[in-house]
């Protein structure tokens, strides 16, 4: 019998494998946020290196958010063809199916994060490598949870695929905006900040900003970790349940 780690690796490497034959899609997805950064960063007021310190972690979080929320989209097709069913009959642990697929979406994002950082270095951007690594761990926890929710959404919407896109798109932007990823929340009205305080991504973003700068021993690190772990656990719970109940 296999372990959860081995099962996750099996699912993850299966998912990643087609990219090996088709690296072009990875390159495209890597360039996207660079374009975004190039067009958005000049609009940020004040000192550029200061602005980047605020903005780079945000871009990285945004990429992971987008990528992991797409976890279910590849699944939709595999549900139709029968390859998802085939995998459900194997003894693969159910959480491994969720984690493996979510990781496949976000691992390319880690490479992308590195690229963004390198591109920003000439503009005076500096980061703490240790802090950033811890930040990525937190981000991975959040993304696994979101990926699992996306997976559950695909199972729920398997007979009407448009539902998947409607729900995914409807939720994505509020989550993004209410986390202060693109614009600071500080200047917003009270009701908006109250709403944001219920958004776990908000705590993740705050933690990332502090960690990338090297402020590891902060309360934001703890709240970020807790928020990410909560989303991760909740997502896996919902995802496994959806798999077991799906007819």
């Amino acid at each position, binding site marked *: 019998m296999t372990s959860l780690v*081995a099962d996750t690796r099996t699912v993850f490497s299966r998912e990643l494998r087609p990219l090996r034959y088709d690296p072009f899609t990875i390159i495209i997805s890597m360039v996207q946020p660079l374009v975004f950064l190039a067009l958005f960063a000049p609009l940020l007021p004040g000192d550029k290196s200061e602005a980047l310190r605020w903005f780079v972690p945000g871009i990285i979080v945004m990429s992971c958010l987008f990528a992991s929320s797409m976890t279910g989209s590849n699944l939709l097709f595999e549900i139709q063809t029968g390859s998802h069913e085939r995998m459900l009959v194997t003894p693969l642990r159910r959480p491994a199916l969720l984690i493996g697929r979510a990781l496949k979406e976000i691992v390319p994002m880690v490479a992308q994060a590195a690229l963004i950082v390198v591109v920003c270095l000439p503009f005076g951007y500096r980061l703490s490598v240790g802090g950033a690594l811890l930040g990525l761990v937190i981000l991975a926890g959040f993304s696994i949870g979101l990926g699992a929710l996306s997976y559950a959404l695909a199972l729920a919407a398997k007979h009407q695929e448009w539902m998947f896109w409607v729900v995914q798109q409807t939720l994505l932007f509020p989550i993004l905006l209410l986390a202060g990823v693109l614009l600071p929340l500080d200047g917003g009205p009270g009701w908006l900040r109250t709403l944001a305080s219920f958004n776990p991504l908000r705590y993740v973003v705050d933690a990332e900003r502090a960690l990338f700068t090297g402020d590891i021993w902060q309360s934001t690190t703890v709240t970020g970790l807790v928020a990410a772990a909560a989303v991760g656990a909740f997502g896996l719970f919902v995802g496994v349940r959806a798999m077991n109940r799906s007819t």
Partner: protein
Amino acid sequence: MKPSVGHMIETRGLTKHFKDVRAVDGIDLTVARGELVALLGPNGAGKSTTLRMLTTLIPPTAGTATVAGFDVVRRQREVRQRIGYIGQGNGAGHSQRGRDELISQGRAYGMGVRPARARAAELIESLGLGEVADRKVATLSGGQRRRLDIAMGLIHAPELLFLDEPSTGLDPQNRANLQEHILRLRAEHGTTIVLTTHYLDEADSMAERVIVVDHGRVIADDSPARLKAEHVGDTILLGFDSEQETTAAAATLSGRDSHPYGKELRIRTQGGPRQVPGLLEDLRSAGLPAASVEVIRPTLDDVFLTLTGRSLREGGANADRQPAVELVEV
């Protein structure tokens, strides 16, 4: 963790309701080790739903099922480890390569990288997938994909194999090949095989036990030969030169279930071919030599028709009918 000895599959009152649809409505089934069983029934009879419960994909609404010695609800992992399942769809991802899928399937069953690789190569060879195994699955033909599905189901050499409509959508040549593979698998490894089909000839020629399913229930369960003999029987058609001779022959054979139709005499009987020589002899000695003889053997469709009043061929079950007639030259 030892599986309980005994039957490979045992169900009691196995039931699945989808809202108000009684897809499977109380099935009691016992399959012994090494059996090859076909579930035969029209579309919507509940064949796939039964298989999906036996393979842990969906929980039963009621009833119990033990597969390879383990309960399908409480011991899912143990069941999954021991069975192979080839579903109605295609198991390989379209953007994947066949060989890669085989290897990751092996890994999913806990095989090491090397053994999985070697086993994949072996199956690619034996299923004739050598030329296409390293191509994108999306570019394979229907027959090639189906063989890849079979290979994936066999990667861990399961003791019990489920196949849901394995040959649907294949041309006759590919279908024959596939059936041959399945039979060879059984002969070589003694694998227990449960397949579903709505092709009558497939159930007839492959399985030594056919379980006829309709509206979620088992309505008959026996060997094809016994099903036909018990529920339908043979018809012997004797041709004569005149209607008078036919009537006279009917009178001579008065102990039999015979009906004259013009110059033809229809006799309903069991074991038709064995009766023909004696019958002809009797008629000849009565001075009524038959001009022609046909033995019409029933098909499983006739069995289904007798049992349900409906034909399996209706409703999209477009199996091509094998002529079920044996001509005997006189």
